């Protein structure tokens, strides 16, 4: 068939399109450095500013890891999952099953043993939350596809059940999640004190972002997910099952929430079952700021929220509580769909 090479005249009026090269929208990327620069004179002391900024970035990375799956879950199937925080809690608590018995490795002054223990804890937490995510999607989400009100109610119900299950298994008291020995302490950079663990959190966050970026841009599955967020019907018309993609995204998103829970729990060093529901508000603010369905927007949104929280906490502790809401309002006034809006249907 494709052997005939016809000499059809090319359509005219293509030239103007050459001039129209504005593929990447950089503006949201500029807000972060702008915010940091703006905060510098307000904070006054450079070392304090460095400490605050790195603390903000670390917190932002952890929130990003928790939120990244949720934004795709909404983007792909319009599913409002208020139970996402349950996977954060379960991930953190599951990690105690490894880190508490492996006290020797955790307390050893050996980076290798520490990493091994943490690696095992993360692996178990992500496996458990991934599997639970799969079950959650089948049992709780599937019957309410397309029904937003029911989704909100039933996923919130799932969240409550999960918290109670944690109480049943681990008791109602808060329990410790010990930080590996070599991750403790501070590095002195110039005059600024930077907690080592925060640098590790930044590193892990960047790695997760890089992996997601590669998957979403370089693999067929990733491209299908992005295409599905934009126009799920067309993805189906091209012959792919969007629900199968969605299940995969749901499992991965739940496992990432579990990872976020481990990192967050280590950071706080003590766990209560409410750790997930505490982060839920932040996570929702982040995905709304970022633009529902956009992983890049979620990343910038998470860093923004965390930086604003840290700067505001230092500059005006009274405002800190509402700073995120103010940030969200400001962003939505500028871009009502969030930083990066994904064109829908």
């Amino acid at each position, binding site marked *: *068939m*494709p*052997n*005939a*090479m*016809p*000499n*059809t*005249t*090319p*359509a*005219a*009026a*293509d030239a*103007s*399109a*050459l001039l*129209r*090269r*504005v*593929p990447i929208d950089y503006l949201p990327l500029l807000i972060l450095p702008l915010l940091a620069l703006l905060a510098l004179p307000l904070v006054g002391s450079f070392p304090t500013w460095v400490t605050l900024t790195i603390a903000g970035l670390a917190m932002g990375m952890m929130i990003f890891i928790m939120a990244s799956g949720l934004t795709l879950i909404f983007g792909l199937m319009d599913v409002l999952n208020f139970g996402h925080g349950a996977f954060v809690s379960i991930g953190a608590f599951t990690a105690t099953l490894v880190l508490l018995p492996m006290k020797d490795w955790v307390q050893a002054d050996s980076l290798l043993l520490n990493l091994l223990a943490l690696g095992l804890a993360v692996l178990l937490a992500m496996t458990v939350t991934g599997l639970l995510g799969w079950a959650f999607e089948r049992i709780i989400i599937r019957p309410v596809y397309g029904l937003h009100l029911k989704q909100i109610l039933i996923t919130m119900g799932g969240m409550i059940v999960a918290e109670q299950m944690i109480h049943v298994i681990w008791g109602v008291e808060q329990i410790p999640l010990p930080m590996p020995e070599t991750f403790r302490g501070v590095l002195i950079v110039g005059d600024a004190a930077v907690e080592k663990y925060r640098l590790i959190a930044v590193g892990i966050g960047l790695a997760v972002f890089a992996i997601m970026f590669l998957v979403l841009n370089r693999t*067929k599955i990733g*491209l*299908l997910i*992005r*295409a599905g967020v*934009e*126009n799920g*019907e*067309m*993805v*189906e*018309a*091209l*012959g*792919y*099952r969007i629900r199968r993609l969605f299940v995969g995204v749901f499992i991965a998103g739940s496992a990432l929430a579990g990872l976020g829970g481990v990192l967050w729990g280590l950071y706080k060093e003590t766990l209560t079952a409410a750790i997930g529901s505490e982060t839920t508000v932040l996570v929702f603010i982040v995905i709304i700021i970022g633009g529902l369905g956009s992983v890049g927007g979620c990343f910038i949104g998470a860093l923004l929220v965390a930086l604003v929280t840290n700067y505001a906490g230092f500059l005006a502790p009274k405002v800190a509580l509402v700073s995120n809401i103010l940030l969200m309002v400001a962003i939505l006034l500028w871009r009502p769909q969030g930083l990066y809006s*994904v*064109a829908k249907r």
Partner: protein
Amino acid sequence: MSEALLTLKGVHTHIGQYHILQGIDLVVPKNGLMVLLGRNGAGKTTTLRTIMGLWHASQGTVNFAGRDITHSATPDISCAGIAYVPENMGIFADLTVRENLFLAARNVKKAGEMDTARLEWIFGFFPALRKFWGQPAGTLSGGQKQMLAIARAIVEPRKLLLVDEPTKGLAPAIVRSLIDAFLELKTTETTILLVEQNFNFVKSLGDSVAVIDDGRMVHTGTMAELSGDMDLQQKLLGLALEHQY
């Protein structure tokens, strides 16, 4: 006429509480190009969406290549060999031209493994796609998006193409290049069901024609018969038809 590739028998489609298609009978013969005409709101898009499984018939049957697809899911219908170019083109704006075509090439695992001979064939009538290969499809012009939407449908051979009003809002020069593309497609073994309102566009392309009105089939026949009979055109298509370009 040759054997039927697609057969709709007494198809009724409801959208919510609305009864849109009210008993559609349609036989699309294998090979060749059939035009589906009808005024705004007649039910043309609904017919294509029902074939594609995006709406499901509440009554009647849809048969494709000897298979009952009335209740099949959209991905299965697509895999059975039907490609769909929707009215809004369904372009993935965030993805590049290349990535759009890569996803449409269902059997290809890596973008670099697309059939280059076939791509060259497509570039032959849609040269703009080569030019904007690496650009996000959202930055293309309306005509170029339409070309991409059609290219996606033919990047791998399919038995049947459903194309919904490809000339909508396009400049005459682009419409002419679409005509060339369809003429080229007609030389392949693909069957085409083309929805149009622009009668002049399809007059030279169609082999057979069906006219739909108010959710019912009001005429089927050959294109030669309809284009030669002004009275019939007037009766079936009235003034609703745009005699543009």
